[in-house]
């Protein structure tokens, strides 16, 4: 029988390496640090927002290995080795992506606080290249809360982006 390992101090920093918006980033984080806090505090990627920190509002959604994930519920140590994409990675060479342009055309958002979560959720949807009805789009967006818009403008933005055939 081996001796039980020393308990890890909750404050002990654990090294992680991951790719964020295409760039290799590394850091040392306490085990309890959320991915959202790691992105916002350590990498200064404040485009990802925290609207509830309990997994309901979707504002903190980022893509982890291409899948939408709530960065308030993930620990930074869980994404060691992963590929993470955030709203800051959407624009192409400084220009708004087709999704961002469609949202601007349609006046998709108002205060912009829910925006990062919606954009990343929708980005993943566009990359699936499925044809979707408006009702299906509403269903797909129903895990993200927006308090300003009543959603219609966001749905229009998605329909426009889908219609343009762009995958983001």
């Amino acid at each position, binding site marked *: 029988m081996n001796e039980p390992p020393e308990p890890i101090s909750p*404050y002990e920093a654990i090294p992680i390496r991951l790719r964020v918006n295409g760039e290799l980033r590394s850091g040392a984080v*306490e085990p*309890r*640090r959320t991915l959202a806090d790691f992105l*916002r505090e350590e990498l*200064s*990627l*404040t*485009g*990802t*927002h*925290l*609207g*509830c*920190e*309990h997994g*309901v*509002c979707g*504002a903190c959604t980022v893509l982890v290995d291409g899948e939408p994930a709530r960065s308030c519920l993930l620990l930074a140590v869980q994404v060691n080795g992963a590929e993470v994409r*955030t*709203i*800051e990675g*959407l*624009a192409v060479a400084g220009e*708004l992506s087709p999704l*961002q342009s469609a*949202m*601007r*055309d*349609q*006046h998709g*958002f*108002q*205060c*912009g*606080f*829910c*925006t*990062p979560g919606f*954009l990343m959720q929708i980005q993943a949807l566009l990359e699936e290249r499925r044809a979707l009805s408006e009702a299906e*789009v*509403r*269903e797909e*967006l*129903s*895990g*993200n*809360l*927006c*308090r*300003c*818009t*009543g*959603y*219609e*403008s*966001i*749905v229009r933005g998605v329909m426009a982006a889908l219609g343009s055939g762009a995958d983001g």
Partner: protein
Amino acid sequence: MAERSPVGGGGAARFVGASVQRGEDLRLLRGQGRYVDDVRLPGMLHAAFVRSPLAHARVVGVVTEAARRARGVVAVFDGEEIARLARPRASIPGGTDDGGPPVYTLLATDKVRLVGDPVALVVAESRYLAEDACELVEVRYEALPAVVSAEQALDPKSPPIFEDLGGNVIYGPTTKAYGDLAGTFARADLVVQAKISQHRQQNVPMEGRGIVASFDPETGELLVHAATQGVNTTRAALAAQLGLAAEKVRVLAGDIGGSFGLKFGISREEVACAAASRALGRPVRWIEDRGENLTVSGQAREESFEVEAAVTREGEILGMRVQMVVDAGAYPGLAPMVVDSVREMIPGPYRLQALEFSATVAVTNKASYVAYRGPWAAETFVRERMVDLVATELGLDPLEVRLRNVARRGEPPLRMVTGPPLAGITARESLERMAELIDLPEFRRRQAAARREGRYLGVGFATYLEPAPGPRSPDSPPDPGELEHQRMRLEADGTLSVFTAQMPHGQGHETTLAQIAADQFGVDWEQVRVVVGDSSLSPAGFGTGGSRFATMAGGATLHAARELRSKVLEVAAQLLDTGPERLAIVGGLVVGEGAPAGGLQLAELAAAAERGLLPVGTDSRLEAEVTFDGGESGWSGGTHCALVEVDCDTGRVRVERYLVVEDCGEMINPAIVEGQVRGGVAQGLGAVLLERSAYDPDGQYLSGSFMDYLLPTATDVPHIEIEHLETVRLDPDVNFRGVGEGGMIVAPPTLCNAIADALAPLGARITEQHLPPSRLLELIGTIGG
């Protein structure tokens, strides 16, 4: 986009009236907005609050030693310590929290008065560590019976929440009467009575409250990054509460993640953080979490009414007697001011001849009363529900009753019985247009057929007026605090800077003011820079609220741009040795007789003015300052209509169609107007079908997460059809009117009326606003209530 006729001196409108893309979106869509949670300052510390688990209790002892010794903790402040640094004062104009009674402290000292009441403040090197240390603060409480309803509060035997108030009534009872009430009741064929109530609900912006306060011990200056609806208001409130000269406080605000009335002035927690920064000489940041936001940031609307309406058999509503009781929660706030607005607005667009209105505001052990989008909305809810109850009683169609009572523009009465002029109202047009849009007779046929199959369809209307800001009233000149001040400057690089006290938090003001300025001045809208969110640059003014922006800031911008344009043309004429009347500014160039071929660049002109190339005596400062009183102004308003089906097995409401016919005068940017309307309607539908700030009998808060306080999602909000009326121009120049609150004001009665109509054959009488499936099943009698 919509073609518009010329709007005045600046030539043909090119941008006003068009849904131009928002300037703000260039940063917001890229994740480059800067919200208060994004501010990082060197040496910044993080705050967390120890909060009361009880609704009402005496604080017997606060032990902070263990927390002070905890990892990363820099300081712990209990209520007494904060009380030595700052004290609460009115944080909003019109608020009652000005020195007491009741007297209270920023953090609880003697007593806690609601669940979540802050008791101690921990400041640490990170938020994680601050929250850890909160667990180590020991607070001993002696529980007191909680007062959790206005009814309880009004019982003289209820335990006083503030001893110095002498009971749990903070305002009233007051009674005001207008017109010949006795006469209208004597002439009435019958009196319809009802108890109507709105439930407690709340703003829930996606971004909560927050502050980064940074006191510089060297200079004695306090720099504050805030999420606020007005930097000047926040600055004044902070200075007063900290005992600092206003000149020593600078408030900055960046992007704001929504507010809906919540972020006016400054909260107790935020002042405490500023006090902590001052004591520590280091920046202190506090970002509210969602649990705090739902539990203690503030709640709204819990109001109940006893109404009697004197009516004729033909459906004419002659007079009303109304008693209002507000459950205003624990700490003093805006409720008394809201009572005044409810009383004044309750006649709405109808020819009511007499009104008696009494009101009482009660204190309870619940979250404090705050402004929430259309704070006085109860007037529309009560009136519009009452109209339908009258119609039911008389066997008339609710639309017919509305048309019978609604005032005709330009015919007596020219005022509501409570005083406000009815100038320019288009309520009748909006009702008539709505009837056409839904084809009411056809709907009634469909409804009858559905009922035969056991399906319950309903139609509901509601009409409202939104004082945005309301027509000029000859006997009440605008309050000096309500004037809109603005500065505008042509910069050396040819951009036009617009300085406003407005503080946008989602409304796109940077775009809409740029549209107006651009048209009037003669430049492209992207050449206009709208400067907001810095108290050191802001003109005087309380900020954004009350749907005042479009008229007040829009009007100030229009006049400032005209004034600056004439000034610039004067200067150009001097430089070019010609007459200003021969020149114009078009597309950012000065053109006309005497101007160089191809025009004179504004940047060149500004540079020449700066270099002093002008004849002595010319005023070369390319700046204008104006104060605007709102002009003739006017009402926004309209009619909303919902067609619904209620499933009597599940209690679910399906909104088949939701229609809006609204009038906000001349639209600056139709896409922004429609966004405001839809967002407001979504909140109103949420209030009826989902949202409720619920407490148990001990005052424990039951809606402290998004699993319990349900916001509408993309599948809950239907497509909203909007039609605009733009009928009446009361002012020669400024006919933009506010549109921020109307949707939220009128959607709840619209939907409740539709549900009541659907359930009419089942005998359900609806006098409340919150109608989730469980409640509908009770009302129908499917389940026991």
